[in-house]
């Protein structure tokens, strides 16, 4: 842990502070960012013990006392250097949760017509804006206790596909997200929901997965 003094500016973000440190005080500091406007999800770090997207976190919000903040890499992920974590496991788990769409239509077929007011479309809308920043994964106690656990982001992604009427891999996906490494390990602590910068509730999606897995089990489909 190293201390730096950074000049305070109006509307300054945590990412501005990190950038100032690298440009003016320590050119060797490693950190990750791209868009700076809360779209790409690459700048998440632990700020005063809480995982946050640093580009949209104002210093005024993050400073607790004495004008000091502590900036660390995300938790629950291996650190490559300084503030950069290795996100491979995080995204590999999306693949393990069968997080990619599988349909049965070709370009010669007509468009699917999904009413925007439909119940499943609304559930998808509530969960689809994930930017893959890793804040939920870093905040999840179950991930830290059970490294096999797929985590809130991957399960949330699976949930959006389970609700997608066009998707044809529901049963395989339910198999992938069931059990000790999947939705059944969630303790509903809701840290993911509290910390998600996009206001998504992975907890709600995971609860939905538990329901869908149980129904598939009762129907003998698992």
């Amino acid at each position, binding site marked *: 842990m190293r201390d730096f003094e950074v000049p305070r500016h109006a509307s300054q973000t945590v990412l501005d502070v990190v950038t100032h440190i690298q440009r003016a005080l320590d050119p060797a500091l490693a950190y990750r960012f791209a868009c700076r406007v809360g779209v790409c999800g690459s700048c998440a770090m632990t700020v005063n013990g809480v995982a946050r997207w640093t580009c949209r976190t104002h210093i005024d919000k993050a400073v607790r006392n004495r004008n000091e903040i502590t900036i660390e890499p995300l938790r629950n992920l291996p650190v490559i250097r300084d503030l950069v974590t290795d996100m491979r496991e995080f995204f590999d788990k999306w693949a393990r949760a069968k997080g990619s769409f599988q349909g049965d239509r070709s370009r010669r077929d007509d468009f699917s017509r999904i009413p925007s007011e439909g119940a499943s479309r609304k559930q998808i809308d509530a969960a689809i804006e994930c930017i893959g920043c890793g804040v939920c994964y870093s905040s999840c106690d179950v991930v830290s206790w*059970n490294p096999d656990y797929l985590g809130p982001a991957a399960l949330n992604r699976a949930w959006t596909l389970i609700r997608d009427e066009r998707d044809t891999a529901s049963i395989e996906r339910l198999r992938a997200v*069931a*059990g*000790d490494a999947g939705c059944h*390990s969630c303790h509903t602590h809701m840290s993911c929901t509290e910390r998600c910068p996009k206001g998504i509730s992975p907890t709600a999606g995971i609860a939905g997965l*538990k329901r869908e897995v149980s129904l598939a*089990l009762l129907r003998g489909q*698992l």
Partner: protein
Amino acid sequence: MSAKTQSLLWVAQRASAAVLALCVIVHLGTMIYAIRGGLSASEILSRTQGSVGWLAFYSVFVLAVAVHAPIGLRSVLLEWLGWRGASRDVFLAGVAIVLAGLGMRAVVGVFA
């Protein structure tokens, strides 16, 4: 253990929790009600001995505990001690048998 079996265990734990919620309310309610004017052990036994209703009720209670507790313990052992695999499940099957055995011994004890 397959994901299907793990999901079944989860359903069994939720179902047994629902049974336990009811059993605990009936058990505590009856106890508090029956003991208001003071009640000796022999008076309690005179009510439970030969009562098929209480035998059935407490048998369900004990079996729900024997299902519920080891499944919960399964997560605790993984998350606190990192214990996973077949050895943990064999141990927990033993816990279930001990809980059911001791519990049923007590149930039969107040029935017979």
